[in-house]
């Protein structure tokens, strides 16, 4: 009894200072606000939580411009957009990256971004947001949401792979398709828009057929890909999954020369991600410098490896395995952003009705 008492006392005495030193208090703000000349040093970037650039690239930006980049990331593209809309009178940063063409109209309508155009490198303007006449948004990257298939599974089962959206409703592919839902995932939303683009007002009929054919709808991309897809981490039982055009580059076994999956290029919806200067930014020159930097060859070349997306600048070289495994569609589906803005709620409500019966 006595020894345990002593032990307890020692533990208590030892623990208190230890606890004290491992608190986050006292960890001050490490951001020097201005330089001697009065120029604001920090550029605050508001972005989604997939944002990533190699440290070296960020360092180069800071060395070239003399600014210090502060990154504030949380939530997906939708949360980001709504965050920007809610704080438009008092923005939480200077520049935003990651608003995509399915959400951009909302941000533009609300006046989140201040117009800013510059001599962008060749190819960038091909991705401009339709209707963005004042040029508030600059395209930075693009990627496609495409149906992916497990080639090894189809070979083993001696079945021809599906190719088109229509094929997915073919009874031959019953109970083989898994996809994240449109209401809870931006990937799922992109696929809903692909079907809206392909079938027009008849899209709900397509979804009825899809669901009747045993499609499984999950909450998010990780759930569909990692649990249910046969090539995912959980080794599931469905060989057809909704993912990205870049996904096949991640399913190349060690030492192999071919990917075990490929994207169906006739089922794709193109997503373009934009950057823009926030209206009311404290550091407008810094924000503009960062937008320009995002279209520099340094960042464009880093995009595939760091964010799994394709560059928008003409002639940017791709990583070796991307050039051979990640194909991009020539004619992806698209929907006018203004249409998306006007009908998003209605489409989502109808989609929920069709898929939850």
């Amino acid at each position, binding site marked *: 009894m006595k020894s345990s008492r002593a032990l307890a006392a020692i533990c208590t005495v030892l623990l208190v200072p230890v606890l004290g030193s491992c608190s*986050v208090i006292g960890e001050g703000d490490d951001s020097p606000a201005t330089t001697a000349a009065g120029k604001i040093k920090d550029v605050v970037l508001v972005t989604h939580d997939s944002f990533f650039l190699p440290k070296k690239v960020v360092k180069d930006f800071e060395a070239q411009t003399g600014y210090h980049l502060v990154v504030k990331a949380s*939530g997906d593209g939708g949360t980001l957009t709504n965050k920007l809309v809610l704080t438009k009178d008092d923005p939480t940063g200077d520049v935003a990256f990651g608003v995509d063409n399915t959400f951009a109209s909302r941000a533009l309508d609300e006046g989140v971004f201040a117009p800013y155009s510059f001599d962008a490198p060749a190819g960038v303007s091909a991705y401009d947001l339709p209707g963005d006449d004042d040029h508030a948004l600059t395209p930075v990257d693009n990627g496609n949401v495409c149906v992916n298939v497990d080639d090894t599974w189809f070979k083993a089962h001696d079945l021809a792979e599906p190719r088109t959206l229509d094929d997915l409703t073919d009874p031959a592919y019953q109970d083989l398709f898994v996809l994240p839902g449109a209401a809870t995932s931006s990937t799922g939303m992109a696929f809903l828009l692909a079907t809206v683009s392909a079938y027009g007002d008849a899209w709900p009929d397509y979804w009825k057929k899809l669901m009747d054919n045993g499609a499984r709808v999950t909450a998010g991309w990780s759930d569909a890909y990692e*649990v249910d897809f046969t090539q995912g981490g959980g080794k599931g039982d469905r060989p057809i999954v909704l993912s990205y055009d870049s996904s096949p580059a991640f399913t190349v076994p060690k030492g192999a020369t071919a990917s075990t999956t490929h994207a169906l290029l006739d089922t794709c919806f193109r997503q373009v991600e934009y950057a823009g200067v926030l209206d009311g930014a404290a550091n407008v020159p810094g924000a503009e410098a960062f937008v320009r930097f995002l279209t520099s060859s340094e960042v464009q070349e880093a995009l595939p490896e760091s964010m799994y997306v394709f560059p928008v600048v003409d002639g940017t070289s791709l990583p070796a395995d991307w050039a051979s495994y990640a194909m991009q569609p020539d004619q992806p589906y698209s929907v006018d952003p203004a249409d998306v803005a006007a009908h998003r709620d209605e489409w989502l409500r109808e989609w929920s009705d069709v898929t939850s019966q």
Partner: protein
Amino acid sequence: MRRALTLAALALLPVAVLGVFFVLPVSGMLARGFWPDGSFDPGGVISVLGRPRVHRVLWFTVWSASVATVVSVLLGLPAAHALHRREFPGRRVLRAALLVPFVLPTVVVGVAFRELLGESGPLGFLGLDGTPVAIVAGLVFFNVAVVIRAVGASWESLDQRPADAAAALGASPAQVFRTVTLPALRPAIVSAASVVFLFCATAFGVVLTLGGLRYSSVETEIYLLTTNLLDLQGAAALSVLQLVAVVALLLVAGRLRAVPDPSVSRVLPRPRRLSRQDWPGAMATLLLVVLVALPIGTLVLGSLQVEGSGWGLGNYRALTTRGTHQALLVPVTDALVTSLRTAVDATWMSLSLGLLVAVVVTRRSRSRAERRVRATLDGFFMLPLGVSAVTLGFGFLITLDHPPLELRDSPLLVPIAQALVALPLVVRTIVPVLSGVDDRQRQAAASLGAGPLRAVLTVDLPVVWKPLLAASGFAFAASLGEFGATSFLARDEHPTVPVVIFRLIGHPGPMNYGMALAASVVLAATTAVVMLVVERLRVPSVGAF
């Protein structure tokens, strides 16, 4: 008059904290819904409540949370008894282990449950994937720890003698439990059940992942309306509905909790050995351990499978890296340090606030008005559990953005938000024990010449010491596992473990999935170790103060 002033002084700090970090942000978001374009439009909000979908959502929330609460209590009570009243080898380890589910990130547990229950999983033949049963099982998995720890803390120091007397007079064990033990435990059980119900009713990830989008709760609906549709009117309507329901629940719980004479005789615990008549309880505990171990086992097995090279520790070794294709900004090991440091802050914050609140609400009231004030305060501190993390997160952004409350970018925001989540757990663990202390003991101490501080030390501290440790364990675990508010507020360079796990699981790449599982196992193990240390620290001599 002096009593009223003391009450006000003690309550001042907790009320101020809750006012700034809860009432202000939430009312900011509600205001956006009620004043959509600057003009007051309550009609728009009320009309949302007429939508048939809202009725379905509401019914499902109440139904699933009620069932999950009942199951959690039924499974938690025998375990609380076995783990807190009986002595057997491995008791402490088991007690620490059963708190583990509480900190696991919901997204990972959701995935583990789906691997277990899915078409090709080991339990796939049950056909439970995507059913309400799976949702309820998930809710119980997360919340049964609350029942075990909160009720256990109260049960542990309960005087055994009245029960023994009843048994000696011929009462059967069931009769003893019903007539002696249960009434004494009622405040603790009702306290725990009300917290579990609130956690279940506001569960987000579990419903989303396990329900397969077919089932929507008020919480998931608020999330969808806010982040996907920016329908702030709808979100405001549902938030108000949620708040009203929570207040109603708290009123009911307050009634149920109240017993004619709350004072219970407390003794220093002397756990007995397991005896033959304990076997039904032991079996029930064993069943619970199996239920909890299944999904955790799935996680552990998954974490040991390295993509492309079979079994091994590769996923664990990778935790010092930034993942395949650099999915992370910082290695998981760095995130773990951040998590621990944040949890230390969240723990002391919630403990000191919780203790103040508990003292304020448990002191015997002299008048009806005073009692009412104390009861209102008691309920007020439970409210954070009844509000959606996304409402609170967006609320922070739009209300705490100008001086003197320019706190949007403060590094302390994360621990404060986590402390608010843990606060009700702390309060609900301490209050039943503290209110069981007979006020006459304090009066006796005072009349013998003890000052207020000494009276507290000799009368309150000996019985409150253990629940306090239980509560600190809770607060620590809650902070380690918190994701909703943290992901919204955490700064990029300093993410916590649940945040990096979420990131890993959402990024393609051969190792990232395995690393997410390994990181979850490390998070779980860390919690278990911290809990064991807390158990060890239970100073056995405190009665001799």
